[in-house]
């Protein structure tokens, strides 16, 4: 059995073994991370552990999506 075979609920229960930062650190780094992403820079290398946190934390993931969407809106307006 491989990770991709796991039921989504089991995946959310078990989480990932990847190193990840916590919610406070995610918030502290989120602005820099989003700007790096939108600039095409290697955000995951430059802010290690944030991507893994977004996978495990739906609330932080929603706020990351919103920040990216807002910045993208700004860039075209």
């Amino acid at each position, binding site marked *: *059995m*491989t*990770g991709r075979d*796991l*039921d989504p*609920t*089991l995946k*959310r*229960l*078990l*989480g990932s*073994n990847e190193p*990840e930062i*916590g*919610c*406070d650190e995610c*918030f*502290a780094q*989120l*602005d*820099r991370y*989003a*700007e790096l992403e939108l600039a095409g820079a290697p955000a995951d290398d430059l802010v290690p552990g944030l991507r893994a946190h977004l996978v*495990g*934390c*739906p*609330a932080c993931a*929603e*706020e990351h999506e*919103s*920040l990216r*969407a*807002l*910045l993208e*809106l*700004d860039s075209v*307006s």
Partner: protein
Amino acid sequence: MDDTNEGVSAITLENWVDELAVGSEDAVARLHGLLLRAARFEVFRRRGSLPQLSAVELDELAQDAADDAAVSVLRRLEDFRGESSFRTWAYKFALLEAAVKVRRRAWRDREVTLEPEHWESLAHTGPGPDDDAENGELLAAVREGIRTALTPRQRQVLVAAVLEGVPIDVLAERLDSNRNALYKLLHDARRRLRAHVAAAGFPEVNE
């Protein structure tokens, strides 16, 4: 108050932050405009979870979020080190406040079930009737791990957050905690659960 991008970009970053630091009313008003724009953006994105609220009530929620975000930004101004633009840095405070308010409002009248037995229904959320024997064994190992490897508090939070779908901010409010502390608890619970399941014959969950 000027909440347009043009108004914001007319202030240089250095001047704006400096003016905020000395309490300039104009700078604070411009900050509030920026935060209100972000808060309205977030509330609009999440409005589907609040079908009972009118447009006026949704805007009041955004106004409250912008007010709280302004307080946070001004309190933490010294934390801004220029690693992003000030606008991006400020946005995240408004998005956080708005998102938390929307989640809590959406769950305000909903009961949060913290029944430790709820995870027993996990079998019914599995891959379905075509489960092979290995999936069945994995589910049994997970159920056993939830029952025996976690502390009561870890079990309560894991079940509520993952199986009940309770937002972490709602859980934090009900449990008199905060998002960071609850996520750490959730993270530790997942690590314990993976260790238990790996020891039960599924080492790949810990790879």
